[in-house]
């Protein structure tokens, strides 16, 4: 049976409705809908344990959904499993490469498994090693590889069959800012060449930099689905943090700021307030209003919003447990696409 979907019209790369996955008592994914247009990057943003990886594992045919349907380029993940596997590349959170083999041996083996001849597998492996700047390390034991090198090799292995849809599960977690910027450029190049990318991240900034659409998930549910600009409009581009001198003033300050900015204001440690701001220009208004009410301030900060604040703005409750709220350096990488990793 050979199936050729003959349509040039815009088929969605991913179309999922009501995906549910339950692990014992824990409903890891609780009714997720997802639509990803072909040729775009979709960023799935959420804290640890939000269900990001579980969603990817279902779409990548590793896990069976308990409910819901999903299609990859129009092919059902349940009934057309083997077709779906021909269309995807999966790069998990943990490098899935063989520690006992060298980088070359790993890539050649994966290529052979995908049906490449000996000669073609060799050519393909060398090509990918070169592309990802691993030629020098090609025959070194993987135990000597850095985290960044492993990620690259893992991604290279996912690209052997040049799949039209690539899943990247937290591709930059644990990478230093420079390596992270390169990984971002690599992802952009993939899309330039016609791939569709679904990437998960805990970093708001990363989703903002890369994604055409951002899906925010929390506790297995989609809490927001928007473009980066749309999302920023709803949560602000800046985060105002101030500490009042007298904790008794905190509630009053909350009311004033909330009224002025039309947002939810969070209070922590009785005297620390934080609120999203759509523009840093509003800071003067806030400070004036507080001064007029006689509220004295101890400290004022305007920072980029953290994931925790995004969640507070979207759900009205802080939900991020073990997230360290660290945002990546956000400079867009201008590196030339050629020789990125060399």
């Amino acid at each position, binding site marked *: 049976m050979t199936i050729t979907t003959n349509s040039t019209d815009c088929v969605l790369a991913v179309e999922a409705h009501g995906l549910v996955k339950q692990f014992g008592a824990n409903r890891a994914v609780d009714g997720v809908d997802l639509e990803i247009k072909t040729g775009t990057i979709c960023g799935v943003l959420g804290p640890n344990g939000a269900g990001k990886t579980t969603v990817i594992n279902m779409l990548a045919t590793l896990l069976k959904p308990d409910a819901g349907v999903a299609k990859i380029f129009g092919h059902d993940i349940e009934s057309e499993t083997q077709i779906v596997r021909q269309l995807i590349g999966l790069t998990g959170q943990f490098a899935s490469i063989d520690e006992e083999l060298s980088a070359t041996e790993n890539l050649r*083996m994966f290529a052979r498994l995908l049906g490449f001849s000996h000669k073609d597998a060799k050519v393909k492996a060398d090509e990918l090693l070169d592309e990802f700047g691993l030629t020098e390390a090609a025959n070194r034991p993987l135990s000597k590889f850095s985290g960044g090198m492993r990620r690259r090799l893992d991604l290279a292995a996912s690209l052997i069959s040049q799949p039209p849809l690539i899943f990247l599960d937290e591709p930059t977690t644990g990478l230093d800012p420079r390596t992270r910027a390169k990984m971002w450029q690599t992802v952009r190049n993939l899309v330039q060449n016609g791939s569709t990318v679904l990437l998960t991240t805990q970093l708001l900034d990363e989703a903002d930099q890369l994604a055409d659409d951002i899906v925010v998930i929390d506790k297995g549910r989609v809490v927001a689905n928007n473009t980066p600009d749309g999302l920023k409009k709803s949560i602000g581009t800046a985060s105002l943090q101030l500490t009042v001198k007298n904790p008794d003033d905190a509630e009053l300050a909350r009311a004033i700021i909330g009224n002025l900015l039309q947002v939810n204001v969070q209070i922590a440690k009785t005297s620390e307030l934080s609120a999203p701001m759509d523009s840093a220009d509003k800071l003067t208004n806030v400070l004036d209003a507080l001064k007029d009410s006689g509220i004295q301030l101890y400290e004022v900060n305007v920072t980029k919003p953290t994931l925790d604040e995004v969640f507070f703005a979207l759900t009205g409750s802080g939900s991020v447990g073990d997230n360290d709220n660290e945002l990546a350096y956000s400079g867009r990488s201008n590196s030339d696409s050629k020789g990125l990793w060399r």
Partner: protein
Amino acid sequence: MTNTLIIPASERRLNNYVSMEFTFKNTLTFAYRSLVKGFKNPESFADVVIMPVMFTLMFTYLFGGAISGDVTAYLPIIVPGILMQTCVTGSSNAASQLREDMDKNTTSRFKSMPIARIAPLAGILTADLVRYAIAGVITFAVGALIGYRPPAGLFAVLACILFMSLIAWCLSWLFAFIAMKVKSVAAASSGAMLIMFPMAFLSNAFAPTETMPSAIRFFAEHINPLSKAVSATREILAYGTLSSDFYFALLGSLAILAVFIPLTVRAYGKRR
């Protein structure tokens, strides 16, 4: 990055099944991978090298006199027995080896690739044929050193190694099934032992069955396919002929395959 454009999903020729030919190719690739890893880590062959030496010497000098009157007379009985025992122990090792492999992240990648489901398992088990062959060669070499000269000659010896390797390969699917069903390497290893020991020892491999209690004797003579395999081997080595035991052992092993390949592949492919 290469600037080769990705072929859109709609322009690809896609199959929802894997052909037999591709399954076979995938299996060979996995077997090759397993061997490359094995040769990078030569200690992994220690068991199939040391065990036949140890057991052949130990059993021959411990039981030779008691069972057959003298060591030379015991050799035609014990060498086929040791051959069976080392091959079967080797195949039971597949359980812990597979369990360990399944827990690695590479398994996720294999499962997301358009390859034959059976191939990662079949590859590892097939690569073990090399281990069985090593065990077989060493068993006969040690036997020859202490005076064993099979009447049917070298060709019969090679045929026996091949035959016993095949039996062990079939049996390894049973151990693979155990590996799929348990959660830890330790459980896989002890589960395999619990099956391997009664099968190897409640047989005619080391001692004549005549003096065994009737229930054990019945099992050893009529049920245990490994007894049949040992009897068949003894006959090949002595006369160069194939007895009914040979076919019985072969059929028994194929039955194991028929039952455990589907069960094992299903357990492996199961998406939780």
